[in-house]
């Protein structure tokens, strides 16, 4: 019974994190047609913000004096801060909110910066540029130790330490799912609004949209800022959920998985995003469970990623519009005159 709860919490939290990432990909790629293959960089922005600041802020608030290097001591101090948070809920919430707001801010700023190449380059060059930038980000994270502890990773205090036992996990679940739902609703709202129609117009025919007076540069900048801020939120949740941040976790494979979910679900349809993420999570869990029942001469995780690659190829070949294809635009019903 307890294990089941644990499983549900795990699945739901991972679902929320990927739903946020997929929503931001859907907004940028599905609606506006910018293949932002540096998605993991914005995800990492959120996680790195938490990694670099949560412990330091906690230590500062708890009036503890930091001795030793950041990379070797962060896990030790994060446990001290967690103990401190156990009796100081207000400070814990402050740390969470400050890191969340800063992450959103950093994400949005990076998104605006990313819009500089996004306006100028053809899609594939843009994808390469963004992947390269994301990798650069990861290389810096791995080697510049004061940021997230280099290869050792960084410890993150438990911001819900003041709640008793199980309620802690359930509260975190509520927190992550409600953030995910809010972000998905923002996507839905944007997608069905005049703004969403503008995005599709730009995606389908940039010149026509330009001729109709839409400021393409500004809109792309806006969308990348919103999308990147969303991804940063996912990073924040991920960091607090895992309780640690490792730079090497943020490899381009994460981006590919998010692209897979969006394409699988159906580009240009926010409901497709819900479905795509769901299918991925279910498949991933089922294949992981199979590990206990069948013997294979290799690690099943590789088989799982292999399956995802093949599924993505098959979807691209036979059903490029995805499971839930984009619907015609919602318009006001014509009334009889």
């Amino acid at each position: 019974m307890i294990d089941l709860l644990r499983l549900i919490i795990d699945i739901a939290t991972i679902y929320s994190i990927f739903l946020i990432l997929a929503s931001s990909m859907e907004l940028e790629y599905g609606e506006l047609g910018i293949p932002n293959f540096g998605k993991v960089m914005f995800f990492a922005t959120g996680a790195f913000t938490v990694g670099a600041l949560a412990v330091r802020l906690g230590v500062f608030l708890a009036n503890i004096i930091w001795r030793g290097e950041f990379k070797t001591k962060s896990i030790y101090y994060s446990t001290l801060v967690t103990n401190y948070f156990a009796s100081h809920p207000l400070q814990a919430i402050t740390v969470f909110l400050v890191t969340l707001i800063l992450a959103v801010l950093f994400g949005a700023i990076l998104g605006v910066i990313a819009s500089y190449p996004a306006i100028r380059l053809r899609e594939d060059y843009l994808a390469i540029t963004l992947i390269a930038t994301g990798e650069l980000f990861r290389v810096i994270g791995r080697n510049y130790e004061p940021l997230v502890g280099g290869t050792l990773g960084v410890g993150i205090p438990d911001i819900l330490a003041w709640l008793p036992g199980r309620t802690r996990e359930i509260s975190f679940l509520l927190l992550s799912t409600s953030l995910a739902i809010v972000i998905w609703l923002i996507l839905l709202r944007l997608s069905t609004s005049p703004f969403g129609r503008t995005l599709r117009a730009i995606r389908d025919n940039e010149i026509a949209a330009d001729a109709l007076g839409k400021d393409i540069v500004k809109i792309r900048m806006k969308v990348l800022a919103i999308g990147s801020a969303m991804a940063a939120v996912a990073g924040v949740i991920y960091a607090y959920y895992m309780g640690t941040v490792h730079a090497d976790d943020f490899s381009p494979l994460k981006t590919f998985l998010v692209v897979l979910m969006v394409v699988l679900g159906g580009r240009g349809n926010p409901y497709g995003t819900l479905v795509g993420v769901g299918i991925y999570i279910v498949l991933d869990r089922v294949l992981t469970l199979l590990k206990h029942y069948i013997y294979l001469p290799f690690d099943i995780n590789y088989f799982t990623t292999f399956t995802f690659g093949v599924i993505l190829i098959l979807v691209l070949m036979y059903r490029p519009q995805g499971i839930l294809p984009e619907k015609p635009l919602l318009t006001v019903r014509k009334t009889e005159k």
Partner: protein
Amino acid sequence: MIDLLLDALVYSNLLVLLSISLTLTILTLKVSNFAHGDLAIVGVYGAYTFMVILGISTYFSIPFAFLFGGLYALATYLLVYGPMRRRGANFVMLMIASMAVDISTRSLLHMYADFMKSQLKVYSRGFIFDDISLDITGFKLQGIIFFSSLSVILLLLFLYILLMKTKFGIAMRAAIENPDLAEILGINVEKVYSFSWFLAGGFAGVAGFFLPFRIPTSPDLGFIILLSIFAASILGGVNSLAGAVVGGYIVGFSEILGTYLLSQPPINLNTAYRPAIPFTLLILTLMLMPKGLASLWSKGE
């Protein structure tokens, strides 16, 4: 210092082969193939397997690297990119497909590495090849330097003769230049493209064969070097084979020499920042000179 330059030469030779073959695939399908680095690794695993099974000396397994890289590239073309092209997929879809191919290929290689370890009882991850020492008229030379340079020269010569002097090569160029027109003239575009992909995969496989002499090789290495390959190809101007050669040497030398210089006293940067050099070159080229070096000598478009 000489050692460093020779190191840079070996690495650049490798990048030249890879960027040439990447350019070849980009020329045919206009797809930025994100699975390109993996072809090199498929080649090296193929060669490694036969080296172990047949017990042949290292350099004799180069043809296997060519064959495996080529066949794998051909398979991806026939199974994925070709059908998608005929269904009219645009290049973003092809690019996403190549990412999917990359994911699948790397997981396949990982599975194969596990299998190889359990069946052949050899190191299947992080393995290296032992080099031989050549004695050319009293001048000692590592085999890798000689063989990688020789491979580049021979393969480039082969490509040049093929494209410029043979009927098939002319058909290839025609099919690349304008597939529709070539088809009307009776050129079997499908066949020509398939051959181009086989050739590109073969080149990549040979390049991959030289990897384990310098870098411990694992299934993920292909993706790690991918961005250096793209940097070389894009610096050279993407659509230019000559540019790919120049780009390969520039990126290769600046990666090795740059890492060395930056790790020296005034800056003392950790050598782990090495990937930053090709990434920066790549981003700068795209931002400042999107047509690459080829725009310096060709006045097209």
